[in-house]
């Protein structure tokens, strides 16, 4: 019985540790504030090059 109790306490502590790690992991990840496009703008129609 004692071992079952210890197992559940250990499980609870582990759960607490994992959930805290998740939260701190999010806090340390910088928020993406700027978005980089996948390509340069298509700013020409071609009349000056022909």
């Amino acid at each position, binding site marked *: 019985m004692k071992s079952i109790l210890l197992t559940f306490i250990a499980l609870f502590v582990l759960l607490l540790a994992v959930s805290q790690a998740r939260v701190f992991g999010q806090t340390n990840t910088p928020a993406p504030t700027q978005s980089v496009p*996948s390509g340069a703008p298509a700013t020409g129609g071609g009349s000056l090059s022909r």
Partner: protein
Amino acid sequence: MKQFIIKLSLTIALVLAAVWLFEPDSLSFQKTTGRQTKAAVIKKEPETGLPVRLIIPKINLDAAVEQVGLDSQGRMDVPKDPWNVAWYDKGFRPGENGSAVIAGHLDTATSAAVFYQLDGLVPGDDIYVNDDRGKQYHFVVSNKESYPFDRFPLEAVFASEGRAQLNLVTCQGVFDLSAQNYSNRLVIYSEMEE
């Protein structure tokens, strides 16, 4: 008594596990840190306004600024009017610390457009941006580069942090009729004068 403690512990552990699995933020020990996380990612209202005009005295340019995001291919979009310029509104604002990007057409299928003289700028030339709060920002050209369109340094042009910069982009090079695309992109780099 012993059995009661075991059952109580078991019940608490199971309830907490269930709550954590389905709604992690609802646990009291996470509430404080959860709020801090959200507070950290909320973007403060920028001190600079939205750009409304781009003025470059050397090439007699005084153009309205459109706001654009991405086109259907994920590229920076372009101004609808060839005599307007377009500010990339998913990036930095002119005057903010970081590189703001404004693009303009070199030409259309039938005529020149707003940035057809942009290549005439050299380091030291002045650029001004007016925002919608009546403030004017003064930038000075620091560099100009031409890149093949498929080797455009996107991160460097769009995502540089640090000092307030303004990068102007237009087409350059040879027009590929089949692809309807110029071979190069010209970038005028400028830095804000404090």
